[in-house]
């Protein structure tokens, strides 16, 4: 078996593999740059919580459609995700609770509801599919949804890029020159939620945030400017999707965890070989000691 057949053959042979690849590439192009900002805003765990919080919405959409239907699950997830973002923001402004505390409470409540809904009216297989995704069910409408979300995200990101970036590292300056920092924060959270929704099908609700943050974390090691970080993250996301899909095909395991593990492997390798990484530091220390 040549490298070509190993790397390309499954996508030539099977329509579902092709659709999965197209969906994953579109997802990587949009979700990884969002992830770069999420990482820089130190909101990785917030994104993680948000991805769990959208579960009941996704579950209701799933039950209405009777199967994994990205548009319906997406709308459900979006509504619940935004409700929780707004609610926890409001709670933190009106009480002494910090935003992360109220957020954690809401997302756990929401996650519990989601699992309950699926276990009451769906099967265990359904629950697994919602949590971990299934590439077999990607159809034309799912592709259009992911493509649509990617398009909206990239255009949206281009439009609010400057205020978003400034709000990220110098919020005081933005508030003085612009006065509307909060609006951009909210728009950004909206983009985070729609991108998590886009990741449901290939990655599942549990893993969607992984595609957002892991390639971005790796990219942060290798870049000195934000555009470079976003580009590297997107490329890493695409490569992990491709390799991950192949591995899940050959080893016959769920696609979501495999893609995420591929991205994690790249992160670990980067940690080891990066100039400021673990291996280099050890070597330096050894030299200094010797």
């Amino acid at each position: 078996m040549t490298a070509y057949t190993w790397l390309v053959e499954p996508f030539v042979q099977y329509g579902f593999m092709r659709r999965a690849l197209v969906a994953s590439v579109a997802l990587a192009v949009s979700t990884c740059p969002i992830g770069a900002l999420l990482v820089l805003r130190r909101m990785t765990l917030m994104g993680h919580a948000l991805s769990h919080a959208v579960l009941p919405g996704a579950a209701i959409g799933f039950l209405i459609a009777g199967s994994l239907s990205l548009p319906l699950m997406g709308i459900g997830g979006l509504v619940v995700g935004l409700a929780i973002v707004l609610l926890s923001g409001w709670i933190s402004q009106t009480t002494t609770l910090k935003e992360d505390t109220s957020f954690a409470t809401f997302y756990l409540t929401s996650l519990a509801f989601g699992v309950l809904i699926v276990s009451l009216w769906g099967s265990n297989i359904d629950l697994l599919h919602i949590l971990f995704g299934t590439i077999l069910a990607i159809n034309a409408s799912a592709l259009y949804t992911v493509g649509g979300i990617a398009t909206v995200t990239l255009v949206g990101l281009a439009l609010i890029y400057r205020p978003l970036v400034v709000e990220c590292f110098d919020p005081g300056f933005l508030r003085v020159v612009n006065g509307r920092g909060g609006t951009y924060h909210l728009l950004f959270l909206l983009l985070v939620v729609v991108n998590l929704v886009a990741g449901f099908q290939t990655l599942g609700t549990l893993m969607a945030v992984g595609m957002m943050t892991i390639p971005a974390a790796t990219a942060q090691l290798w870049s000195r400017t934000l555009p470079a970080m976003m580009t590297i993250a997107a490329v890493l996301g695409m490569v992990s999707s491709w390799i991950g899909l192949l591995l899940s095909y050959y080893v016959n395991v769920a696609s979501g965890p495999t893609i995420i593990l591929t991205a994690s492997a790249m992160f670990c390798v980067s940690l080891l070989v990066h100039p400021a990484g673990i291996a280099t530091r050890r070597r330096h220390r050894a030299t200094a000691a010797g």
Partner: protein
Amino acid sequence: MSETAVTLHQVTVAYDGQPALERVSCEIPRGQLTAIAGPNGAGKSTLLKALTGEQRLSGGTIDWHGLDRRDIGYLPQAAAIDRQFPLTVADMVSLGTWRETGAFRGIATASASRAAEALSTVGLSGFERRPIGVLSAGQFQRVLFARLLVQAAPVILLDEPFTAIDARTVRDLLAIIHRWHAEGRTVVAVLHDFDQIRAHFDNTLLLSRQVVHWGRSRIALSADNQRRAREWAEDRDEDSIVDIPARQTV
């Protein structure tokens, strides 16, 4: 044109019911250098945030006499900025053109050359392409001053501009403040070094949650006033065991 840049009348700010500023009144004169001084927790930064509009007032009024928020150049405390953010020095300085470009418009060539000129004024020519993460504290403060130079605002608010900055940078940046003064701009700065204030700033607002003294720096920072400011701060600490936490955003 009035002689007063901004009038504060009975300005009161409270965090979660705990007052941080009480009934502060003063008229900050236009085109002069004004310092805000006082012990820790006196409400100095809170007052600057109230001036920029970032902090909502619990009582009182602030009258800018026709000036707009966009006429204010604001230097946040260094700690409020994420210095590890992957951004180049040129990007950072170009943000000073916000008044012309806003959130969406492109940066004109003329503005870009203004940024380069500002960088050379603060002694950082050729630093354009460096990431802000590699700069020393002093160099980073020079970059922030370059951004203010590009902004060219009629009113400039500086929150602890010289904290943890090397002496040479302080000297250079003070020269820029004097240049602003010569250009007729109004500068208000939160400062800790009383000798520095006496040497360079016309007026001082000595705060200890309330106004201890407002007037000429030499008088405001008299030994008597300093002692009063300290005593008020000590009384306060005895009254409330609970510290007033700064509001954090996630």
